[in-house]
C-alpha cells in the first residue's frame, strides 16, 4: 500500500502530480507485488476446499498413503467410488431431511416476516415502535437460550425429534432478522401506491399480496437465500431437536466425526455434497446474498 509514496508530489506543485520514470517503475513493481500477494491469498482461500474435493475422490487406501496434492502427478487415482458408496448409506436420507427442513422453514419465514414487516412499516397500532425495538433486541439472542426450554416444551407436546419441531425452532429464530430486513425495505415503498390502493377500497390482505409483496421482491430474494443457507448449514439445532431418523446432513456427518481418519471417505464426500447446493445458490444469487448480509450485518 505504501509503494505509491514515491509518486507523492514534493510540496509546492499543484495540479496533477508529476510522475517520473522512477516512480512509474516503482508503481509497476508495486502492482506486480500486489498481484503476487493476491494470487497467493486467493490460493490460500481456494486450496483447502479443493483438498476436500480431491480427498473425497480418492480411496481411503490412497488417502492414507499420500497427500491429496499428489493428484497432480497421479490423476488416474481419482474415482467416484466414495460418492457411490454414500448413495446407499444413511447419508441419502439425511440429504432429504436437510431439504425437508430447509424449504418449509424458508417459505414460512418469508411469509410470516413479510406480514409482520408490512404491519410494522405501514400500519398504525399502539406500541408499534416499542414492539419493533424488541425485534431489534432479539436479533442477536443466542439460540442456546432456547435449547433447554424448547426441548422440554417439545418433550411435553410430543414433537421432540420430529421435523416440524426443528422447522418451528428455525422459523422463530429466523424471524427477528427477517422482520427487520423486510420492514426496512417496505418502509421505502412510495406511500402514494398504498394510499391509492386503500382509497380504492382494497383490503389490507389484498394490498399485501398484490402490492407490497411484489414490490418487496429484491429484499425477499435476499432474505430467502440467506435463510435457506442458514438453515441448510445449521448443526446445533439439528443436534438437539432432530432424532436419528430425521437428522439432516450436518448431524449425520457429525456422528461420523468420531472415527475421523478411518472414514475420511464418507466424511469428505458427504461434506462436499452438503456444500454443493449452497455453493450453486451462492454463485447464482451472490448479489442477493450480499444485499441480505449488508442489510442485516448487525446479526
Amino acid at each position, binding site marked *: *500500500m505504501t*509503494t*505509491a*509514496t514515491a509518486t*507523492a*508530489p514534493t*510540496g509546492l506543485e499543484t495540479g496533477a502530480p508529476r510522475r517520473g520514470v522512477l516512480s512509474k517503475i516503482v508503481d509497476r513493481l508495486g502492482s506486480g507485488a*500486489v498481484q503476487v*500477494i*493476491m494470487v497467493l*491469498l*486467493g490460493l490460500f*482461500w481456494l*486450496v*483447502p476446499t479443493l*483438498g*476436500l474435493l480431491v*480427498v473425497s475422490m480418492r480411496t481411503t487406501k490412497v488417502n492414507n498413503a499420500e*497427500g491429496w496434492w499428489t493428484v497432480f502427478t497421479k490423476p488416474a487415482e481419482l474415482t467416484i467410488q466414495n460418492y457411490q458408496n454414500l448413495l446407499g448409506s444413511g447419508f441419502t436420507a439425511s440429504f432429504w431431511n436437510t431439504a425437508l427442513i430447509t424449504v418449509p422453514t424458508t417459505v414460512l419465514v418469508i411469509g410470516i416476516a413479510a406480514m*409482520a414487516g*408490512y404491519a410494522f412499516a*405501514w*400500519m398504525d*397500532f399502539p406500541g408499534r415502535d416499542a414492539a419493533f425495538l424488541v425485534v431489534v*433486541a432479539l436479533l*442477536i*439472542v443466542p439460540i*442456546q437460550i432456547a*435449547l433447554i*426450554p424448547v426441548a422440554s416444551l417439545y418433550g411435553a407436546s410430543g414433537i421432540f425429534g420430529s421435523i416440524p419441531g426443528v422447522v418451528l425452532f428455525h422459523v*422463530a429464530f429466523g*424471524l*427477528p432478522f427477517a422482520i427487520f430486513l423486510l*420492514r426496512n*425495505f417496505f*418502509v421505502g415503498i412510495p*406511500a402514494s401506491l398504498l394510499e391509492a390502493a*386503500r382509497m380504492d377500497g382494497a383490503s389490507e390482505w389484498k394490498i399485501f399480496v398484490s402490492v407490497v409483496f411484489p414490490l418487496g421482491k429484491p429484499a425477499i430474494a435476499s432474505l430467502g437465500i440467506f435463510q435457506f*443457507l442458514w438453515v*441448510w448449514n*445449521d448443526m446445533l439445532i439439528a443436534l438437539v431437536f432432530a432424532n436419528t431418523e430425521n437428522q439432516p446432513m450436518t448431524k449425520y*456427518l*457429525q456422528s461420523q*466425526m468420531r472415527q*475421523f481418519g478411518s472414514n475420511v471417505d464418507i466424511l469428505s464426500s458427504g*461434506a462436499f455434497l452438503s*456444500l454443493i447446493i*449452497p*455453493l450453486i*445458490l*451462492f454463485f447464482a444469487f*451472490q*448479489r442477493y*446474498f*450480499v*444485499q441480505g448480509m*449488508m*442489510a442485516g*450485518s*448487525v446479526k
Partner: protein
Amino acid sequence: MTERLDGPKVPPAVSAGGPATGPAETPRTKQRLGPSAAVAIAFLLPAALLLGIWVVYPIVYSLIRSLFDANGTGFVGLGNYTTIFTDSGTLTTIRNNLIWVVIAPIVVTTLGLIFAVLTERIKWATAFKLIVFMPMAVSLMAAGVIFRLVYEENPDKGLANAILTTVHDTFASSQGYPEARPREGDQSQVADQNGAVVTKQAVQAGQPVLVPIVGVNPQLVPANAQPAKAPAAGGGLSGTVWLDFTRGGGGQSGAVDPSETGLPGMTVEAVQNGQVAATATTAEDGSFRFDGLPAGSYTVRLPQSNFQASYGGLTWLGPTLITPAIIGAFVWVWAGFAMVLLAAGLAAIPRDALEAARIDGATEWQVFRKITVPLLSPVLLVVFVTMIINTLKVFDLVFIIAPASVQPQANVVALEMWRVSFGGGNNQGLGSALAILLLVLVLPFMIMNIRRFRRENT
C-alpha cells in the same frame, strides 16, 4: 440496494451505516386511512406467537431454570453460576472465549480491510472476492472437515504441515538419524558426548577415522545409501560413518564389513581448540574428507543435529495449538464477510476527498490513515461487533475440528452449554446458567443495536 461482489455501480445507502437499510421513515399523515389496530394485530400474530413461545418465554424459563439443580427440583440460588466461575473446566471455556474475542475479531477485520484495499488495485477483483467470500456459503460443519484435513499432523497428509516442513527443509537440512548412537568400547575411536559423537583422541591427516553407528531405525536409512567403504589412507583428514551392523549376524564390531552400509548426509566437523575448523558431509558410502585442511591435530565431531528427528511440522490439533488452529479456520470463513462489507464502504467514500488530499501532497499512507479509515469507521465498527458476537457464540468449528481428546482444552462456552445439557452432562441447571451467561455477554451489543436504531430513526 444494488450491491454486488463485482463492485457497486451506485454507492449503496446501506454500506456505511449497517442496519438502517431503508430510507428514513416516511412521516405518517394524521388522517387515518390505514387499517384498524385489529388488522395490524392479525398481521403480527403469527410472528408474535412464534417469537413469544420460542424466544421470549425461553429467556424467562432459562433464567429461572438456572437457579435450580440438575434435576430441576432443588433450588440452588446462584450455585450454578458459582460453579461456572470456580470449576476448572468451565473456567477454561471462559478463558478460551476470551482468547477468541481478543484475537479473532481483530484478525478478521484487519484482513478484511487489507483485502478490500488490495482488491481495488487488481483487475480480477471480482474473482478474488468470490473466492474469499465463498466459505460464507459453506456450513461450518463442512469447514470443520476441511480444516481437519488441513491440520492433519502427518506432513504427508496434512497441508499445513506439508507447507511448514517444505519451507523448513528448504532452509535447514534435516536428514536426521534419531536414536542412533556410536558403538562404544575400548576398540572404538569415538564416544558419545552430550548427544554429539566425538573422537576420543585427536586425529591427524592420513589417519582414517572410523565412526561406527548403531541403533539406526532401518526405515530412516536413505535409499541411496551404498555399502560402506573403509577410507583409503592419505590425502587429508578423512573417515567413514557407517551402520556397524550386519543383518543376520556376523561381522566384526568396529570394522567396516562388506554388507554394512554407509550413512549418507551426516554432518561432520573437524574441531581444533574448541573451534570448528572445517565441515564435511558424508557421501553415499558414508565416507567423508576434509579438503584443504591445514595439517595438525583435530577432534572429529558429529554434532547432535545429526541425531535429532527430522522436522515434522506442528501438532495443530494438540492441546496447545488447538485454539489458534480453530481461530485460523474461523478467519478463513469470515474474512470474506469483512472484505465485502468494507469494500462497499470504500466504494462509498467520495473520490474527491481522496484526490484532494493527494493533490495537497499527502502520501498514500496518510490518505489511508487520515481519510479512508475515519470515513470507514462506521463499517469497521459493524464488522468488528459482528465478529465479537460470532466469536462469543462459536460452536460448530470447535466441536468439529477439536478431536475428542483435546476438546476439554479447546472448549468454549457455547459448546460447554450443549455438552452439559445434551451431550452427556445431563445438568440442565448448569446448562441454563451457561446460556444466561452467553446472553449476558451479548447484552451490551443488543443495547448498542437498539440505541443505534433509535438514533437513525428519529
